């Protein structure tokens, strides 16, 4: 399955947030979407799932424009984890993850064994089984973030869009979640993840897309994208000097003035 974004433009209140952007995501590929705040990364993800109106361009899955698919077909193919970790009501963790099975369930009957298995798998993947019966509002920020990731995984869609999946996590779980995404990609899922942690992006991603001002500045292997010039021009930081072989595993070190 292939996701194809061609020449999309998204405007919000007459501001152009995504500008004539094209990209592709193939099955089994783990792609990082990076760029400074306000570059348009989250809006691009929202546009892909159909939550933002396109002023131009189209999003296609296997050559079929998104608007030609039914909402359920679209939901089964594209799973989405937003940046906001929002849950209203004190639902039990397992029930939240089960909501990910919505596109696969019809009517009011109890969940099918398939759904139960998918939910168990997702809970297990994010280490959330021990607190599966607790209320989601009683969890810490990081635990809640993992539960919501499990919800997105439980859809078991061939394409997975995740917005800042590791931002609120401790180092152990950051690596853990990156490994989950890596595994999913190895199993055939196409994963597009918005990331701010450049070292993680460099270490785990097959390919990076660097965005700025609503467009793509650079795309390619992590070593090709994360370099001194891009850090200085796009992120406005200079990196801590690293041996050349580890250049992509950089640590942003110093702010740079906009005029520099």
């Amino acid at each position, binding site marked *: 399955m292939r996701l194809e974004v061609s020449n999309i433009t998204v405007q919000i209140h007459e501001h152009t947030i995504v500008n004539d952007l094209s990209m592709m995501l193939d099955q089994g590929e783990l792609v990082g979407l990076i760029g400074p705040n306000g570059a348009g990364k989250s809006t691009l993800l*929202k546009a892909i*799932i*159909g*939550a933002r109106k396109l002023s131009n361009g189209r999003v296609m899955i296997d050559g079929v424009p998104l608007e030609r698919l039914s*909402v*359920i077909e*679209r*939901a*089964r193919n*594209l*799973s*989405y984890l*937003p940046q*906001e970790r*929002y*849950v*209203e*009501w*004190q*639902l*039990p963790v397992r*029930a*939240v993850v089960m*909501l*990910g099975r*919505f*596109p696969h369930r019809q009517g*009011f009957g*109890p969940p099918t064994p398939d759904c139960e298995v998918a939910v168990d798998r997702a809970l297990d993947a994010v280490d959330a089984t021990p607190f599966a019966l607790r*209320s989601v509002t009683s969890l810490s920020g990081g635990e809640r973030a993992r539960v*919501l990731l499990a*919800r997105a995984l439980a*859809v078991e869609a061939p394409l997975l869009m995740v917005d800042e999946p590791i931002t609120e996590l401790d180092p152990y779980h950051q690596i853990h979640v990156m490994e989950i995404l890596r595994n999913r990609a190895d199993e055939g899922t196409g994963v597009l993840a918005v990331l701010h942690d450049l070292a993680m992006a460099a270490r785990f991603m097959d390919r990076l897309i660097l965005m700025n001002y609503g467009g793509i500045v650079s795309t390619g292997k992590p070593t090709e994208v994360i370099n001194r010039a891009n850090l200085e021009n796009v992120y406005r930081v200079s990196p801590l000097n690293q041996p050349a072989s580890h250049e992509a595993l950089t640590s942003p070190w110093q702010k740079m003035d906009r005029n520099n």
Partner: protein
Amino acid sequence: MDDQKHYYFLIGILAFLVAILFTFSVLVGTTGSGLSDIFTTIGQHDSEISSLIIREIRLPRAILGLLIGATLGLAGATLQGYLRNPLAEPGVIGVSTAAALGAVLAIYTGLSLVVPLALPLMAIGGSLIVVLLLQTLAGAGSVLTLILAGVAISSLCGALTSLVLNLSDNPFASLEIVFWLLGSITDRSMAHVWLAAPFILTGWLLLIASARALDVLSLGEEVALSLGVNVKQTRLLVVSGTAISVGACTAVSGVIGFIGLVVPHLLRPLVGHHPSRLLLASALAGASLLLCADILVRIVSSSTELKLGVVTALIGGPFFLFLILRLKAFYGT
């Protein structure tokens, strides 16, 4: 599953409670009737006074109590789920006040004296206008736009109702308007039941159709959309379902508050906080509460009967304060 069993058990208990209260509602009144009278009466064309009272006065009253209570509970639960706000209730989208305005106009113009069903019909008309207005104003907007539009419509209809009262030079009409606004199901006939029931039942179907989407909406509109929920269609179901059913209720009973607010609040922890499971439970509990309040009204007052809307507010208000205090203790703030 244990959770599922617990839910069915709760529904069973609530259904049993409704059945008991409904029977009791038909039994209780200033003229005593035994249980055997009821079963021999319903369906028979006996012209005995007690059977006449049961068939023509108490039965419609009990049926309306059941339908209205269930509607308020169901619509309250649906709106709280849809708006993701525990303070939402049917009044929040302006339906009750618009229906009340329609009814008040029917009384003011004297139309209700000429055509007895003009009052409920105009009230239903008022609530249908609200559906159109809300769809036009907030059809594609956010939840916030819907609430704002609802508040605006509600204030406008309230102001217009006050204007009608202000302009009314007939003290009897004014008194009738005020009394009607207080909310009651006394002296309603089967004609009222037949008039309101189709609208109420249609509204129920629309509200229930939105149930599954409500669960997914707990994660926000964008996630719901990404999971295959048709957000616009859900809004149409919730808004029109509430307007049609609550409008029809207000049309026959006047404004009865607090049930739609308190009942879902009370039941939420008992159904594991699932918005969809809250619907049926709230409908049954709403019916129980209204039947109970209506029975109380009959038992407590003898000469001047207390109005049902007044009693529900009297029970609901302090109860709501108690809930807030308990929440405050829970969060320790």
